[in-house]
């Protein structure tokens, strides 16, 4: 049993937001996949107030040991998400963490209030990797933005609030500390790193969104460094992610200070990655004498 700021997880491996669609996966692989669900909790793709079509294609570019995506957060919007998706996700055998994003603190507040009432929802993850349209600053790159945001939304719910940090910041630790001081229950990192690709033929940006976010093994070492640094700067639990492919990658992040580890891009290569990685981790943890509620090596 892993305790993530009050969320009880059967094991430390969950999915990264936007990299696994439990509803689509059930359609494709059947109920078997849902019953033996590969993750200890299900994290939704980012939900916004209004519906979003997402970015024009192409949305993907494969890079060395990784992927650039410019998906653009397509989603049904809060209303249809509550009506259509939530009931289906409530049938999952694991806790549900809903990831939300707003372009103003008020938008985030509306989203948080709406999910605060739904007991199908165990916790909320705040995606702050977007510009605040009022200040123009990327919320997650600025400690003051994050404090202000949490000051507004923290009072709205008792549920755990997990703040998802962006790696595209000079001082991620300062942002994490600001989140903790403003009442965040946990932080999660890393989100994707800004990247770009050009069409080999035209020389113009390949992605419909022009730039995108890099994920996968290519970012693993960067994620480990940021998780290690943040673990040294905050006392709240950390959900670590970034390039996790194997139990040993998850073990590294736990040793660096993470309580739970999320799998993202690897799901695309192996729909059962979550289950495989949690088994590999269990074996490694047993051998390396890493106990369930361990204190990370003080390195």
């Amino acid at each position: 049993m892993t305790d993530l700021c009050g969320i009880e997880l059967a094991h430390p491996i969950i999915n990264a937001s936007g990299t696994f669609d439990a509803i689509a996966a059930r359609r494709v692989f059947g109920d078997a996949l849902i019953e033996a669900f590969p993750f200890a909790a299900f994290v939704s793709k980012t939900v916004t107030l209004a519906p979003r079509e997402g970015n024009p294609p192409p949305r993907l570019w494969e890079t060395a040991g990784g992927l650039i995506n410019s998906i653009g957060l397509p989603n049904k919007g809060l209303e249809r998400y509550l009506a259509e998706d939530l009931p289906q996700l409530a049938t999952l055998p694991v806790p549900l963490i809903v990831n939300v994003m707003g372009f103003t603190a008020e938008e985030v507040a509306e989203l948080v209030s709406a999910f605060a009432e739904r007991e199908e929802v165990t916790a909320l993850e705040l995606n702050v990797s977007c510009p605040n349209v009022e200040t123009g600053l990327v919320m997650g790159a600025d400690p003051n933005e994050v404090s202000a945001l949490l000051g507004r939304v923290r009072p709205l719910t008792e549920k755990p609030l997990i703040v998802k940090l962006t790696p595209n910041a000079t001082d991620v630790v300062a942002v994490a500390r600001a989140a903790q001081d403003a009442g965040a229950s946990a932080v999660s990192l890393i989100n994707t790193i800004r990247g770009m690709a050009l069409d080999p033929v035209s020389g113009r940006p390949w992605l419909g969104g022009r730039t995108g976010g890099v994920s996968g093994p290519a970012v693993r070492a960067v994620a480990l460094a940021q998780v290690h640094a943040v673990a040294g700067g905050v006392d709240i639990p950390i959900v670590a992610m970034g390039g996790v492919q194997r139990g040993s990658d998850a073990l590294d992040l736990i040793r660096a200070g993470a309580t739970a580890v999320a799998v993202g891009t690897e799901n695309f290569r192996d729909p059962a990655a979550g289950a495989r990685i949690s088994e590999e981790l269990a074996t490694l943890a047993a051998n390396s004498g890493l106990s369930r509620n361990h204190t990370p090596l003080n390195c």
Partner: protein
Amino acid sequence: MLERRVYGAYIVLRCADPDGPRPQAGQFYMLAAGTWGGGAGERPFLPRAFSVLRAGAGHGLEFLIEDIGPGTHRLCELEPGDDLLLVGPLGVGFTAPADGRRPLLVGGGVGIAPLAIWQDELGAAPALLGFRDAPRAEGARLLADPRVSTDDGSSGHHGLVTDLLREELDNDGHATVYACGPPAMLESVRVLCEERGTPAQLALESGMACGFGACFGCVVPTRHGYVRLCVDGPVLDAAELDTALVAGAGH
């Protein structure tokens, strides 16, 4: 991987999938070789999507592959006995013609793959197959008595496969068209059929990372917004499309 056969510019891979479900015509699999990565630009990293060419009880699965980049190159190098990782069958395939219409298969290049298994299932169905040149036209051997066209005239009709389609539809328009091929070809098929009110099912292509609806990367525009081609396609009803020209597809 059980067998590797060469058809001119194309490779056919046959592999075992003992306990996998039998795929439907038009469905696809995500494939990766046991040794993946380390090619041009340190790719491939993600698996690649391939339509089922043929599937038979005990016969295994067949795929038709054209070497156009690091992923297809690695797959084309595989020898019998090498590991091949596959996820599938995935997506939505072709559906049978309605109200007594005759099926008409139209394929371009490596896009003939899903038409082969569809022809198997339909029994006899006329196939119009277009290729760039003679080496590629050897792929036509994979279907039963096809009419062939090549861009350079080196084999069959000198011109586009849509010339043949126009002929066929002028002779007998009471047909349902099943087409797969490069975006430009699919778009002219779509327009031809739309002009004549002929129903058409188009097997499209787009860049895919997962193949099972997880990444939202494979969307194509339809009359009711973007749809994920991997779960809502790859076969789409032409009536749902304003265009078959998918950004980033083809090569």
